[in-house]
């Protein structure tokens, strides 16, 4: 009994120490964001004169492109998420509930695209963007992410649980197929849609390699790309970099707090069904 207690206390201790390791960088980041250009280089943990100037510089000053980058990330993440929600479920539904020649092949093909690394695709995508003049457009940043094979896989899993009688009843009622999809099927898989939406939004918000390549004009940068450009020829303004990092995390932390249950469940799902 005591042995049990000891190991449990030991477990708590280890977990707490680990939690500190997890949280500390974020704390340090936020603390640094309240230090100005001089304080940032002082060897103190807490700012001697905490200031909101960095936030003002990043968010409010006319020369800062941060708000633009924020907007770009928001637009790109939202548009791709809406597209992914619609098309991934449509494809998942079709693969789950319809029978037609070539179904297995198509499913395998879609899943196999998961194996193709982005690193290989960026070069052809770049050639495509140049040819179609998609450089420095929202479409150019978004197009690779409009449909996600992983989402198709996930939605298909969920769609298989929908009872066929429901669909048949709707058909007998004379509803068109697309109508059935939108009015009957989608409402039944909202938990899955929510999970997919959250993950897609987060993943898209954090995307780096492709936006780095396709957005050459600073006003088209997404937030991660903009953040990476803070250190340049004029030195590294660490106080601004830390502030930028903090701001770039805020939307995700908010999403995280609101949707934590779905996020945790979603992660678990990928592992268990994978």
């Amino acid at each position, binding site marked *: 009994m005591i042995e049990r207690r000891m190991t449990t206390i030991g477990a708590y201790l280890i977990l707490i120490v680990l939690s500190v390791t997890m*949280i500390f*960088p974020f704390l340090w980041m936020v603390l640094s964001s309240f230090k100005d250009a001089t304080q940032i280089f002082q060897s103190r943990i807490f700012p001697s004169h905490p200031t909101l100037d960095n936030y003002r510089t990043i968010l409010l000053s006319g020369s800062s492109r941060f708000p633009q980058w924020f907007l770009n990330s928001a637009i790109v993440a939202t548009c791709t998420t809406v597209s992914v929600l619609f098309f991934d479920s449509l494809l998942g539904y079709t693969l789950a509930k319809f029978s037609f020649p070539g179904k297995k092949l*198509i499913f395998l093909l879609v899943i196999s695209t998961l194996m193709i690394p982005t690193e290989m695709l960026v070069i052809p995508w770049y*050639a495509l963007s140049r040819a179609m003049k998609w450089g420095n457009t929202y479409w150019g940043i978004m197009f690779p992410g409009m449909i996600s094979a992983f989402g198709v896989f996930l939605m298909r899993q969920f769609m298989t649980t929908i009872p066929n009688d429901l669909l048949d009843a709707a058909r007998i009622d004379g509803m068109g197929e697309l109508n059935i999809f939108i009015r009957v099927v989608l409402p039944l898989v909202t938990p899955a849609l929510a999970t997919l939406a959250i993950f897609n939004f987060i993943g898209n918000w954090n995307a780096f390699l492709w936006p780095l390549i396709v957005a050459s004009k600073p006003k088209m940068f997404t937030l991660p790309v903009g953040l990476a450009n803070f250190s340049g020829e004029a030195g590294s303004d660490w106080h601004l970099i830390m502030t930028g990092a903090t701001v770039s995390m805020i939307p995700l932390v908010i999403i995280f707090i609101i949707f934590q249950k779905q996020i945790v469940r979603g992660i678990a799902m990928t*592992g268990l069904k994978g």
Partner: protein
Amino acid sequence: MTLAKKRAMTAYVFLALPLVFFVGVRFGPMLYAMGRSLTDWSLLRKTNQFIGLDNFTAVLSDGVFLKSLGNTLTYALVGAPIVIGLSLGIALLLNRVIHARGLFRLIYILPYITPIVAVSWVWRWMYQSPPLGILNALFSALGLPARDFLLSPKEALYSILAVNIWVELGYCTTVFLAGIQTIPMDCIEAAKIDGATDGQVLFRIILPLLMPITLFLMIMQGIQFLRIFTPVYNMSSQAMGGPLDSTKSAALYIYQMAFTKFEMGRAAAASLILFALIMAVTLLQLRLFDKRATGQEQ
């Protein structure tokens, strides 16, 4: 038209646009990359000649590429097992505690959902040499010597790897914990009644049952680490993959070849080699672990 045929037609209509997407955005480009890797395509010259396997020989005889391959393998072969091992341990610990389990889990997932660019810069800030870096300040307070971290050819790769591990821990822990919680309690209770120790329960029941998840995570993490790019780009000086190419990953090599040297054909060849490496490692893992997984089921 028969009902079945009608349904099939509907299916094809629904599939049309998504399939165009997959072909246009995934398969087509893949074949394009393969084709272009056999040419001397460059953004600085107007030529586009077929040169056979010249790009591949050039890349494979480039010391920098070989170094980046070595680095990439190190990232994967050291990183993936550590992440899996640590997260499994944490999941087991979490399973033990009752209070605050949810809170702990949330804290561990936080690094995973935040932008990698942001955390890369935060860690880079923490890794700074004296007088700026907080980690070195801590070392100094404890009487330990300062470390060069990102400035040392020996330590830089592992410094970046540590950050990536830190990021992935939350994801793997959550998956493992979910897996552990699906193990029926009766199984474990029964074993305990039969006199099994905690250790035996762990090694004979829990771990074997977690094999499919472990395999899944090994493959996913393996692929993740083999493709590592963003932390390397943001944590090496001028995104060079230094010092002395010690942190350069294959993905960064490809990026530099394509977008700073503008040798697109050569970069495409390098990207195909990376692709082949990812496939090989994945298939190898599937073979090795699948045997063990199915072996255990008996």
